[in-house]
């Protein structure tokens, strides 16, 4: 069994920058330290690159960040619309994912995240508590990604049936 749903209402912000001052200022604004370990999540920030994070929150963080980072070399870019958020859950979710995802899913647990490809679509994968797999995927690709996953779910349930 697996289930797929779309999550609405999250604010997504790309944050770019680096260095101690930057880190400190971000910590001040967000209340937690940005994850420095690649492919991990801290607070509400997901690691995307050595100087790049995705901040996921209920409210717009960009003003606070802009204010805190005044004078720093940084980028704060709202991508709330640019990416759709999907969540796949259920016992079959890993098998559904394995229909196209080439990551070692065994190595992924909550607290991690990974950018990768699924069915030729680039996306960001975040395993969450309770066996939930969250995807952040380019908005224009969302329909295709859903269709792919729904197809994989259907095949999975047929194969699983005796």
């Amino acid at each position: 069994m697996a289930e797929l749903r779309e999550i609405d209402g999250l604010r997504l912000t790309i944050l770019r920058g680096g260095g101690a001052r930057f880190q400190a200022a971000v910590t001040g604004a967000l209340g937690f330290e940005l994850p420095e370990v690649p492919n991990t999540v801290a607070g509400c920030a997901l690691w995307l690159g050595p100087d790049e994070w995705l901040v996921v929150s209920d409210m717009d963080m960009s003003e606070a960040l802009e204010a805190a980072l005044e004078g720093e070399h940084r980028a704060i870019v709202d991508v709330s619309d640019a990416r759709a958020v999907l969540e796949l859950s259920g016992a079959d979710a890993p098998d559904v994912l394995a229909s196209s995802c080439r990551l070692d899913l065994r190595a992924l647990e909550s607290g991690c995240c990974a950018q990768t490809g699924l069915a030729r679509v680039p996306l960001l994968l975040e395993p969450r508590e309770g066996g939930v797999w969250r995807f952040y995927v380019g908005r224009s690709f969302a329909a295709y990604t859903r269709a792919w996953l729904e197809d994989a779910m259907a095949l999975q349930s047929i194969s699983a049936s005796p």
Partner: protein
Amino acid sequence: MMRIECPWCGGRDETEFHYGGEAHIMRPENPDALSDEAWADYLFMRANPKGVHAERWMHAQGCRRWFNVLRHTVSHEVVAVYPMGTPRPDLPETGA
């Protein structure tokens, strides 16, 4: 299909990467000062060795960072991964 070690994300399948060809080809400081031959050398001429090749890869579906790789062009063995801007590391002779 190869597995390539992204210096940030670790080993990922080749399909996540874009290949960038030979590494360490510096864009000339002052192109105008170059002869047509020298410019052609920069633009087109490549080492293309059979053996260990210094090359660039970008983790396109991942962290989107470029990095350098030493890879054997026959065995496809990846013998070193190192950051952009650092010189090619010395290697003990590999028999691969």
